[in-house]
Structures are given as structure tokens and as C-alpha cells.
């Protein structure tokens, strides 16, 4: 019995160790995980169940390219974990089913899109840990924010919409302007096919907006945004209107998304912002000052699609 020894004296070493993970890293994923590869995914479903009778699908997709620097790693490794905890805890929508994505640049990246399942509990965190953060991206002044839209429009099946005509929520997070179009050849390489010809990002948005409320969160601390804030903001405003939201402090992403959901579900912005403590409250107010509560007749979303 027993070879894995641990003595009382070992605790001193443990407490002081500078962790040597080199040998463990040998095995760690340096490539796209099969389960997250869009090529292997026919469809992702968000289904109603006895435990979740009124499911609401939520997709959060984070830009993992180099211009996001360490932010991408922080947002994906920690931010999304906190986010899903907040969503499950606060339940800004009924029975949230959360899916996370990491995406990059369809032109230059090896793994420009990675997709988890829809999950209704913290087990989603297990899948997040399998994201491969490539950190590449090209110097083409945009990233492929349209890949999550394409996935949402063509590869998801959600009871919320099918049974109750309720759209899901789709958030992309990043610091660069949107790509102008989605190329059929990229779709072939990333998804294994599905698009006859290239499609403009604007047309794709129209398509995805049929079943999803679409938002984009511009991370102001990203290196691209810091060098070209006006250009970035203008491009997103032009495309999404009030669905383009800036965020000055990336550590407040979870609170911002929960707040957007709450406002979209008809809560008053002032009281939503107030529900957070201290500076968070101000950050949220600052980000969402252009947002209004939804119309009472049940039309959700801010887009005129």
C-alpha cells in the first residue's frame, strides 16, 4: 500500500513552493480540444426539462487573440467562471443555460472558434478549463466576432425559441472592430462546410438576430482599443446600435452581463446598478447609460431587426 507520501514537514515546502508544472505541462492541451471543435458539433441544444422548465439560453463568447493580451486568459480562466456563478446565483433570466465560446481570427488562427455545451450548472467550468488560448490573431484590424453569430444562427436548437418564441442572449467580448464578412472557405475549414458563398457581417447579424438578442462588449483595456478607441466604437455602434457596450474594467464583466440581462428582462437600470457594491455600481451605470428598460409588450432587445 501507499507510495504517495506526505509528511508534516512537507507542508512547509508546499506553502513555499514555486510550482514546477513543467512535467504536467507535457500533457496539457496545446491544441484544439475535440469536444470544443465546431467541426465535431452538429448541433448544440438547450432543452427544457423537469428541473429547468423555462430554459433561457445565454452564449458568452470571448476574444482570445493577442490584442487582448493577458486579458483573454484572465477572462476565460477566471472571468467566465465568475460569470456563470453569478448567472446561476442571481438568475437574471428563467432557468439559465450557459454556453461559452472562445474565438479569434478566421484568417490567421489555427483554432478560431471553440464551443462548450449549454449547461445549467457549474460543471461548465470543467469545459472552460479545456479552452486552448491561442492568443494569435492577425494584424488585419478586426477579429472574427461573426463566428459565434454564425454558430448561434446555424448550430443551436433552443426550446426557449422553438416552444415559447423567446430569443436567447448572445454576447461577444473583445477589443477590436468586427470583421467585414464571413468567408465560405473559412466556414468550410472551421465548421466543415455550410455556406454557399461569402456573407457580409451585417447580413449574418440579421440572420442570427432572428433567434438571438445580440450584444457586443468592448473591452477598453484591450491593446487594440487603447490605440484606436474611436474607430472601434464607431464600427460597433454602426453595426449594433445600443447593443454595443463599452466596459472600462474587465474584472466587472460578470456583473455587466448579469445587469444587461436584468435590464433586458424589464428591470430598471438604476436599481440594477444599485444592487452592486461600490465602484461596480458606477462601472455598470457608465456602461449601460444608453440602455433602456424593455418595452412592456414583450418585445425584447434593443435592435431594430
Amino acid at each position, binding site marked *: 500500500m501507499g*507510495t*504517495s507520501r506526505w509528511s508534516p514537514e512537507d507542508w512547509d515546502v508546499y506553502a513555499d513552493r514555486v510550482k514546477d508544472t513543467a512535467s504536467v505541462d507535457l500533457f496539457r492541451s496545446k491544441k484544439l480540444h475535440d469536444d470544443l471543435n465546431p467541426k465535431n458539433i452538429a448541433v448544440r441544444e438547450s432543452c427544457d426539462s423537469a428541473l429547468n422548465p423555462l430554459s433561457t439560453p445565454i452564449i458568452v463568447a470571448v476574444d482570445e487573440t493577442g490584442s487582448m493580451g493577458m486579458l483573454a486568459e484572465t477572462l476565460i480562466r477566471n472571468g467566465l467562471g465568475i460569470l456563470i456563478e453569478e448567472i446561476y446565483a442571481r438568475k437574471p433570466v428563467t432557468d439559465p443555460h450557459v454556453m461559452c465560446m472562445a474565438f479569434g481570427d478566421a484568417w490567421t488562427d489555427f483554432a478560431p472558434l471553440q464551443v462548450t455545451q449549454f449547461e445549467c450548472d*457549474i460543471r461548465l467550468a470543467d469545459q472552460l478549463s479545456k479552452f486552448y488560448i491561442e492568443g494569435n490573431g492577425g494584424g488585419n484590424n478586426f477579429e472574427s466576432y461573426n463566428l459565434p453569430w454564425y454558430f448561434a444562427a446555424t448550430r443551436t436548437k433552443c426550446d426557449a425559441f422553438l416552444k415559447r418564441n423567446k430569443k436567447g442572449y448572445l454576447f461577444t467580448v473583445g477589443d477590436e472592430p468586427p470583421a467585414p464578412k464571413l468567408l465560405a472557405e473559412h466556414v468550410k475549414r472551421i465548421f466543415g462546410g455550410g455556406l454557399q458563398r461569402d456573407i457580409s457581417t451585417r447580413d449574418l447579424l440579421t440572420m442570427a438576430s432572428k433567434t438571438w438578442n445580440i450584444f457586443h462588449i468592448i473591452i477598453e483595456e484591450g491593446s487594440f482599443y487603447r490605440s484606436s478607441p474611436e474607430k472601434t466604437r464607431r464600427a460597433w455602434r454602426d453595426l449594433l446600435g445600443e447593443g454595443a457596450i463599452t466596459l472600462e474594467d474587465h474584472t466587472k464583466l460578470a456583473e455587466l452581463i448579469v445587469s444587461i440581462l436584468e435590464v433586458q428582462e424589464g428591470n430598471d437600470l438604476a436599481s440594477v446598478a444599485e444592487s452592486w457594491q461600490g465602484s461596480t455600481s458606477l462601472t455598470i451605470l457608465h456602461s449601460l447609460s444608453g440602455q433602456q428598460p424593455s418595452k412592456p409588450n414583450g418585445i425584447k432587445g434593443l435592435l431594430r431587426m
Partner: protein
Amino acid sequence: MKTGKVIIGANYGDEGKGLFTDYFASQAPEDSLVIRFNGGAQAGHTVVSPDGRRHVFSHFGSGTLLGVPTFLSKFFIVNPLIFVKEYAELAQVSETPPEITIDPNAFLTTPFDMFINQTIEKQRAGKRHGSCGLGINETVTRSLRSPQYRLKSCDVLNSTGLRRRLHELKDSWFKDRLIELKLDPMEEGIQKFVNNTDRIIEEYIKDTQTLIDLATISDRIPPVRQVLFEGAQGLMLDEDRIDQFPHVTRSKTGLTNVLHLAPQFGIEKLCVTYVSRTYLTRHGAGPLEGESDWTLPDSTNIPNQFQGTLRFAPLSLPALEQNIEYDLHRAKNTELDISADLAMTCADQVPVPDTRRMFLTLKHVSFGPTRSSVCQALSSSMR
């Protein structure tokens, strides 16, 4: 009909469960799964592959060198710190990354459990229970005391929550438990540990994050043809063996857990192999009938601070038979189809005893440490 093979140690552990799990796994490596159904990090199952690679398995199934995936059932006790250590060791000998799934309900060992275990075992001095100092008993005690103290493997998915729970445990459970065990909180070693707790918790959180990076937390088992239930410790260490108390382990080492798990995984038939060396060994304290002064080579069981050295005795066939009968008796009311046989290891060190009068058949014999030294014991010449 889906069949499960069960490998159970018939004595005090160290029988050769690793060897036989590896042997059975090698019969269909592409289509097998090893399920660990008891114990935890304290297990040490040695596998030597025919090409000479060697690893002592504790969290991983003994089929790992063959690429066979592992499932840690809800009865397994997960220790993230040892898990990470073992994964790094495996990287040295394994060709491919081990595949492992952990049931979300498996209990989790904390640094507090390990530390308390080591401290009390140290205090017992000459009267040690034979513990490995890895906190198995403490983990179970804490987890069963109250749900508020219980941590499960799914809790590692929420690192913020886990950190909070650990700090709570430090102020509630750990403090109270020291008093309960009459340990002096002002004692130097304990003080040192307490002063370090914040950093120890942070390191532990880091290890749990590495763990979810490398393992999948899920209660769904991969679809395979052959399921191998790999037992840990041995029948004589079962927590229900009142006759051996307190030198027992805190888990069911026999069929009990397997009988519970099998139907959940759609298994209707179980073939149980009880493994014994051709002689008796015991690691650590506790009675050992007929103890002798033999010293046979054993590279796995290096003497350590908590368990001492390996002890030896001749094998008593009536006692062996009794252990197995007692275990099979648990299955008498089950609807599962159960068959059982016997395997003996270390036949190269001590000759195989005459098992002809036993109620179950000796089916396999091993003459060395690798699966290539296993042969079927069908003919009487073997006896």
C-alpha cells in the same frame, strides 16, 4: 449482456491488484475502462509493463499505461494535491496523457485532513494504525459529520466558493477537531501549519485548477465493452472487519460498492477475481497471524515514517477462503449474475500452495511483476 470484471485483494493489500488489472485490461485495451470503487490516494498499485516502464498507481487505474481510461466513482476519495503529483510522475512513463473522469460526488480530501491524520498518527508513536498520512479517515469523518463540512469533487469547479469553504473549514472544523482529538493547538508543529494555512490553501486551489484542467468531472461513464472494477486495499482491511479494528481502512474493500455501482452502469454480470500472493504480507501496524522473519524483495513498499516496513507470514488457505466467503456472502441477495475465481502472484518467490480443496478455482498465477508473467492455472501441474 454487459460484464464487469472485479479485482479484489483478498488479504491486507499488496496482493497484485495492479498487476491483474493491467493483465485484464491488456485483453481489450481499446475497449476497456477501469473504475475505482473504494479508497483514495493511499492506494499504491504497482504496474510494470513488459517493456520495463513502472508506475505505482494511486488515483489512476492500473490500465493507464495501456491507454485505458479511468473513472473515479463516487466512493473514491479524491486528493487534488496527490493527483497533480501523480500526473506529473505519469508523464515520465506514459506515452499518452491519461484519460480520467471523476464523479462529481466523490469526496475531496483537504490539507486539514492530511495534517490532522499525520499529527495523530505521529502521536501514536509505537501504536500506529498503519495509516499513510493522507487523511482518508479524516476526510470520511469530516464528510459524514455534517453536509456543511463536506466537500465534493464538483466543488473544485467553483474556485471562489472552494476557497471560501476552506477558510470556513479552518475556522470551524479544523479548530474543533483539534480539540476533539485532544491536540494542543499551541504545539509548535500545529502552530507552524496554522501560520501557513493561507498559502497552503492557495497552493491547494492551484492544484484543484490543474486537476480540472486534466480531468473531466462527470457522472457519465464512457461507453465500453469491458468494465474493470479495481479494488484498493484488501478484504482484511475492510471497514466492516470488526475483528481487525482499529487497523482497518475507511472503506468497503470488497464487493459492496461494486454491487451498488454495477446496475447504474448497466452491468448484469460480474466476474470477481480475488488476488493473493502465495504468502501473506502486511504493511504497517496490526495483527499478522504467523508473522515470520522473512524478507522478500519488494520495491514498491519502501519503509516510510507512517507505515514502517512490510511484514511477512505464510498464507493460511482456510483464512483466505473465509475472507472470500464472507465477501461473496454480501452478494447473496443481488440480482446480478456473479462468478468468482482466485489469482495468485509471486509464485516465483514462494511456491503456489495446493488449492484443490478450496471452494473456488485458482485460475491465474503470476511468476513475476509484469502481465507477461501471468499464466492460466488450468492444469493440476500448477498445483
